[in-house]
């Protein structure tokens, strides 16, 4: 059975290779092949899951050694997969949601002439993401880590003819690279410390290392997570990444890839548990990002960017939970899974709306769409309810658990985190209600597109709606399923461990507070956007609004602090290289030439001058010979 594990990766990888190399012959069938392979991978995942369920909790984790990858003395990197409860959870999420989104894309990309390539990239993404979650060591994880980055780059920039898309793709990759630097350094630190970077041995030995070293490793891993999961301060790429086709945003930039940071931290729990300072850093990053993303989400008029802000914020929750240690790991993953359902569903919904509205993304140009796109409205609405934490839906359970865990951290820290989380919940409800209202309610504010075509909103084809419906089911029921009998917690416990915190508030109090916050936020949004007409052109807005529209000036900051000095430095060095270093070399050559030109003048052409130089030379020769004797 374990030998099936490599097939999980191989199936989509083969799909990618086939589609990329196959050429135009596969234009007509390629997308179905890709979808089938994604589904195959999902089926394999299910089979492995069933197999795993058949074993005791202690024997569920298995390792499949493929081959020795980089054998160098004292250095060992293998291509080996580890399938345990944590990774199978991801496998199912990735392949499951992935298959649905493949299916959705069949319809969504039907008219794109480069559809085959799109599906190849999607398959490539699946393969890389599976490597990421299945790797049994950090270096192989790194392969998946950058592999998904590559897929993300290719897919964000899929419409390369748009300069904005190309720029966004490059930005995503480069910012991620900063995070990857963290991962590299973390691996190097582990190697120096433990002589290995495979999960099992490192975690087993982590206790021997000093806390300082572990903190350093933890911080570097956090840097990596910040990059991949768009956490402050490396969050700036996610908003721009919405330039990619919407299925991409759903799969990569909502459900799966961006959550890799959470996976990394949870997976490295053994290290973080021993490095409290690193954990503190993690929760701070998580808390800051959850508010940051939420604020940004409130101000965006672009539906996808609003959702992107939301994603950032939700991942902030997960990171915060992961930073809480054993009390939060399982809930981080649980929220990750439920978020995968509802956020993917909402992105697909957004895609469906755009599909019907001539690719319009500005919510101020929507309005009243609920009657035109009933399925989209229903599925999006369910996702909406899930994310704001409407009682009984999946987001309610998972988010609630995180808020509880935050309070359970204890002390002032617990209070601060808990309140942040509650505030976040309120803002979440606000901006999601805003999205919902602007899109589906109110009057029509439709505008003709650039070519003057009036939009004719209509429901999307089956291939698109079916995945949305499936995801909506997940949004509704997943949370309840997971929470029932703490099944999810127990499932993950062998991997992540679990600890009960010491909460100053009872569970019910927290739930109540969260619900109140949610209602308050939603009500405020309804008040602002539901009861008043929405201007088609965005009002100037307050300072905060304007800042939030500009992603809280993150790009301005990066531009001022990194990009501009960076290009200035590059320009200076280019100048220095040609004028300074090369100038030195050319100057030396010119100097020798100059000396030569001067020295030539002693060759006057007059015999007597020559005779004089000989005579002088003789005198010097005689004198120096005599001098040598006297010395």
């Amino acid at each position, binding site marked *: 059975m374990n030998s099936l594990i490599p097939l999980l990766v191989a199936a989509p990888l083969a799909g990618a290779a086939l589609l990329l190399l196959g050429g135009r012959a596969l234009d007509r069938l390629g997308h179905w092949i890709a979808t089938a392979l994604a589904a195959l991978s999902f089926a394999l995942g299910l089979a492995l899951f069933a197999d795993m369920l058949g074993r005791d909790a202690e024997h569920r984790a298995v390792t499949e050694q493929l081959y020795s990858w980089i054998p160098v003395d004292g250095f060992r990197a293998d291509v080996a997969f580890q399938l345990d409860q944590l990774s199978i959870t991801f496998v199912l999420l990735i392949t499951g949601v992935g298959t649905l989104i493949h299916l959705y894309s069949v319809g969504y990309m039907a008219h794109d002439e480069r559809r085959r390539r799109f599906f190849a990239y999607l398959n490539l993404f699946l393969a890389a993401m599976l490597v990421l979650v299945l790797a049994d060591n950090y270096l192989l994880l790194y392969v998946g880590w950058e592999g998904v980055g590559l897929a993300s780059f290719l897919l964000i920039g899929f419409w390369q003819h748009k300069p904005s898309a190309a720029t966004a793709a490059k930005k995503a990759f480069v910012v991620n690279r900063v995070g990857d630097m963290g991962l590299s350094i973390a691996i190097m630190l582990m190697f120096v410390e433990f002589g290995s970077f495979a999960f099992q041995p490192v975690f087993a030995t982590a206790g021997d290392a000093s806390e300082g070293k572990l903190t350093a490793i933890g911080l570097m891993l956090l840097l990596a997570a910040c990059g991949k999961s768009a956490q402050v301060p490396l969050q700036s790429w996610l908003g721009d990444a919405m330039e990619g086709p919407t299925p991409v945003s759903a799969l990569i930039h909502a459900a799966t890839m961006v959550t890799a940071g959470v996976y990394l931290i949870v997976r490295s729990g053994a290290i973080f548990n021993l490095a409290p300072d690193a954990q503190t850093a993690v929760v701070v990053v998580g808390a800051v990002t959850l508010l940051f993303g939420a604020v940004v989400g409130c101000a965006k008029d672009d539906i996808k960017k609003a959702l992107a802000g939301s994603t950032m914020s939700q991942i902030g929750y997960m990171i915060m939970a992961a930073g809480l240690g054993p009390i939060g790991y399982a809930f981080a993953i649980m929220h990750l899974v439920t978020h995968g359902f509802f956020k993917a569903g909402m992105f697909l919904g957004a895609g469906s709306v755009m599909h019907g509205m001539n690719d319009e993304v500005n919510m101020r140009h929507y309005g009243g769409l609920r009657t035109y796109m009933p399925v989209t409205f229903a599925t999006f609405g369910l996702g909406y309810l899930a994310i704001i934490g409407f009682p009984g839906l999946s987001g309610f359970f998972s988010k609630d658990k995180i808020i509880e865990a935050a309070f359970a951290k204890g002390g002032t820290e617990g209070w601060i985190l808990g309140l942040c989380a509650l505030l976040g919940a309120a803002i979440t409800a606000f901006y999601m209600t805003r999205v919902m209202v602007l899109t589906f309610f109110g009057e029509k504010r439709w505008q003709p597109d650039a070519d003057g075509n009036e939009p004719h909103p209509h429901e999307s084809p089956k291939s698109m709606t079916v995945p949305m419906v499936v995801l909506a089911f997940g949004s509704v029921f997943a949370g309840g399923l997971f929470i029932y009998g703490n099944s999810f917690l127990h499932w993950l416990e062998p991997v992540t461990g679990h600890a009960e915190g010491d909460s100053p508030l009872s569970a019910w109090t927290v739930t109540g507070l969260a619900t109140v916050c949610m209602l308050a936020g939603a009500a405020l949004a309804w008040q602002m956007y539901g009861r008043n007409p929405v201007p088609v052109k965005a009002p100037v807005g307050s300072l905060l609004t304007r800042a939030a529209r500009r992603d809280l000036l993150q790009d301005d900051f990066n531009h001022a602090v990194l990009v501009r000095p960076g290009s200035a430095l590059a320009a200076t060095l280019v100048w220095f290289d040609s004028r300074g270093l090369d100038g030195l070399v050319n100057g030396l050559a010119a100097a020798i030439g100059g000396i030569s030109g001067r020295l030539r003048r002693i*060759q*006057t052409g007059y*015999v*007597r001058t020559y005779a004089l130089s000989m005579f002088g030379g003789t005198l010097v020769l005689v004198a120096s010979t005599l001098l040598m004797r006297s010395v």
Partner: protein
Amino acid sequence: MNPANYLYLAALLFTIGASGVLLRRNAIVLFMCVELMLNASNLALVTFSRMHGNLDGQILAFFTMVVAAAEVVVGLAIIVSIFRTRHSASVDDSNLMKL
């Protein structure tokens, strides 16, 4: 007489000859100055020959005279031909090649 005096004379003649080469312009005169230097050497050779009591120096002096004669032949040929071309015996006029 102290043989050193002959040597001093030889050195003086040699220096005069060398100075002449450096100072005079006429090729013939210049060449005569070189001859003077050769003769200064001859004087020194003969003196040393006498001091050492062997004939080597004197023999060389004879050779020098022959060589000087040969030099004159060659030298005059060259100088005369260039004089006929340029109508000048000044060495400073032969200045086509330089730098």
